[in-house]
């Protein structure tokens, strides 16, 4: 049955449902005022007021407009163009061999939906992805045509995030980039081996090629902008990617190293991790009776933040001999208790980079410490005001040479105090030693991530 026979409502339900496993829903990285219109239509300004026609602006910090029942932010109208697909990736709901309802949107329908949702402040913009219809080129062209229409006919000035389809023509991807704020190519699985097993139609090389192309486009564009201030901007919000966690047997160290090299060698803005949700049954897929590995995903995000904002390197957090994150301690605490020779750190004198390494001190509180200690020396009571989480920090810091309480600078002692009684029993540890995660541990990822922890990760307070 052709997808267009269904009502708009049904198709929206189908194509949203099909898009929901894409994690990225950020609208950040671009600051654009309402009358700053790079798409040429700034010239159709209203004759009376001088203001540009059209709608929309962008805020660099990004804006979340709602939160769905799973607690994830709804920032963009996240939909697929169509969920028909010629590929047969084993982890994907939309794989060719699945018997599910299929649907397709026309470009005009997507434009109208985006405009009407945006006017009502439901969304920050559009996130457009698609299953592969006919060929990568054909699909990419559909996407390109839609956002071209949205920018030039509907004069939409809000945020647009689109997928670059691996294998699509280079020129098509380049042109799309001039109308999008962010582009992403999904890495899908951390290693080429995993990809070969679960996504027989996709190849690592095909995924990395457009990624490199977008990176080069951004660099070239930066140089052009330095000379011509009004040159059209190419993917102004940078590019991102995502990996599925827990569908293949890679360890955390491998995943984090992949992420690190993506940040360094491909200059990605974000790498997203998506705990594998079992939607299909296949002999190559793991069975996860405890639900998606949410704690593991959470630890990866924590480590990701440490890489991007705290000056850590993947090799410091994990290595070949301890390739999995600790279940009970977050990656920074884990690093700190293994490097007690660096502590205690004197709050009133330590450089900013050192402050960032203290568990319980985040980017904001470290900045506030540096600013506040210019006028007077800080006490523990002051640290609390500055937003330092003393519960975690007190084992690692001194204020004017004093510790908060008499504590021991010993690994076991600190670990025992950092983890709660309940967790120690839960994980069968006596508190005197703590275990590492291993793939074969029972109940390894079954501790739930508390909402506090998730919120801290979202806000970047580690």
């Amino acid at each position, binding site marked *: 049955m052709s997808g267009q026979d269904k009502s708009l409502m049904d198709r*929206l339900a189908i194509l949203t449902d099909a898009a929901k496993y894409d994690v990225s829903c950020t609208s950040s990285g671009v600051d654009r005022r309402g009358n700053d219109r790079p798409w040429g239509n700034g010239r159709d300004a209203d004759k009376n007021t001088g203001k540009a026609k059209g709608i929309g602006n962008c805020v660099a910090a990004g804006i979340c407009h709602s939160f769905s029942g799973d607690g994830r932010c709804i920032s963009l109208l996240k939909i697929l163009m169509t969920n028909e697909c010629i590929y047969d990736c084993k982890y994907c709901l939309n794989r060719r061999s699945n018997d599910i309802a299929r649907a397709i949107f026309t470009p005009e329908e997507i434009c109208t939906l985006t405009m009407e949702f945006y006017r009502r402040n439901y969304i920050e913009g559009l996130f457009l992805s698609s299953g592969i219809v006919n060929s990568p080129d054909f699909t990419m062209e559909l996407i390109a045509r839609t956002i071209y229409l949205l920018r030039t006919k509907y004069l939409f000035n809000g945020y647009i995030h689109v997928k670059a389809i691996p294998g699509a023509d280079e020129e098509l991807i380049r042109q799309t980039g001039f109308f999008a704020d962010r582009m992403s190519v999904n890495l899908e699985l951390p290693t080429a081996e995993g990809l070969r097993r679960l996504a027989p139609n996709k190849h690592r090389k095909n995924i990395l090629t457009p990624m490199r192309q977008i990176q080069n486009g951004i660099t070239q564009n930066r140089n052009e902008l330095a000379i011509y201030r009004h040159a059209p901007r190419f993917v102004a919000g940078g590019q991102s990617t995502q990996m599925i966690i827990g569908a293949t047997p890679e360890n955390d160290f491998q995943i984090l190293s992949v992420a690190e090299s993506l940040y360094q060698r491909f200059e990605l803005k974000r790498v997203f991790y998506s705990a594998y949700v079992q939607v299909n049954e296949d002999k190559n897929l793991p069975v996860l009776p405890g639900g998606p590995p949410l704690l593991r995903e959470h630890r990866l995000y924590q480590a990701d933040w440490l890489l991007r904002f705290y000056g850590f390197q993947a090799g410091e957090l994990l290595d070949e001999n301890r390739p999995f994150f600790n279940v009970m301690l977050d990656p920074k605490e884990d690093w700190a208790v293994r490097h007690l020779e660096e502590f205690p750190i004197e709050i009133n004198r330590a450089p900013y980079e050192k402050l960032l390494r203290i568990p319980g001190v985040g980017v904001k509180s470290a900045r506030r410490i540096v600013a506040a200690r210019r006028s007077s020396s800080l006490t523990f009571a002051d640290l609390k005001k500055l937003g330092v989480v003393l519960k975690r920090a007190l084992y690692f810091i001194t204020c004017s040479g004093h510790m908060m309480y008499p504590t021991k600078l010993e690994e076991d002692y600190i670990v025992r105090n950092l983890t709660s009684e309940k967790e120690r029993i839960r994980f069968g540890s006596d508190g005197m030693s703590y275990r590492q995660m291993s793939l074969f541990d029972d109940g390894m990822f079954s501790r739930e991530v508390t909402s506090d922890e998730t919120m801290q990760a979202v806000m970047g307070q580690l």
Partner: protein
Amino acid sequence: MFVYKCEDSFESVFTAIYKVYENHHQREEVFLSLDDDPRLFSTVIEVETDAERYQKVIRTLRKQFGESDYERLCLVLASLDVEKAQAVFGTVVAGLNCGCGAGHLFDNLTDTWVYKAFKLARNAGRENDRYREFIRFEELESGILYSPIKPENNILLFLMPHFADRLSGENFVIHDVGRELFGVHPAGEEWFLVQGEPTAKEESVHGRAKSLSEEKYQMLFKTFCKSIEIKERRNPKLQMGMLPLRYREYMTEFH
């Protein structure tokens, strides 16, 4: 002790700050009060708003502390706290005394009043950000976009520029239901605030006819919000933390 009694407005508080300096009073012996509570052994000085004086103060604050810190001071005054005027005064004096540069007014958080002002500004600023996210416009019969809000802090003033920039071609109204304050933006023109009549309350929130397509788009958005959720990851507690109940009263997807 000198108690400067001012009204709950930017103009009045800034005039009071000017007067303190005019009278050569010391920071320690001055209190800026917004209420009528009598204080023992103190001289009450009634502050009359004076355009020339407060404009001078505003100019100084902007020049000395920069735009963003000036805006934070204004956010403090938009909060509900009874001591907010004193917090602003204490912060400004501390800033002027240490001669801090632009963007550094709130550096010294060990100071009681600076910390207090910092907290109030953060609170009001957060609420402003939340409303920027969670406002839902409804299209009325006449094509005007209308959104009721019920903020704790008086943030409409800070909310309007964002939406005026974003929806410059739309006629829209944001209605602070608790204060009966309307932010009005005619398409393509400057926005302005209107103080409404308290009697118009019931009618203004409920008595408006929606446009023909409004229902359709509300339904579509609800469908979208429902479909986007991953059932295996259900986590209402996290949702509650990110989007507290008090914001949901006028949000389309929760009705």
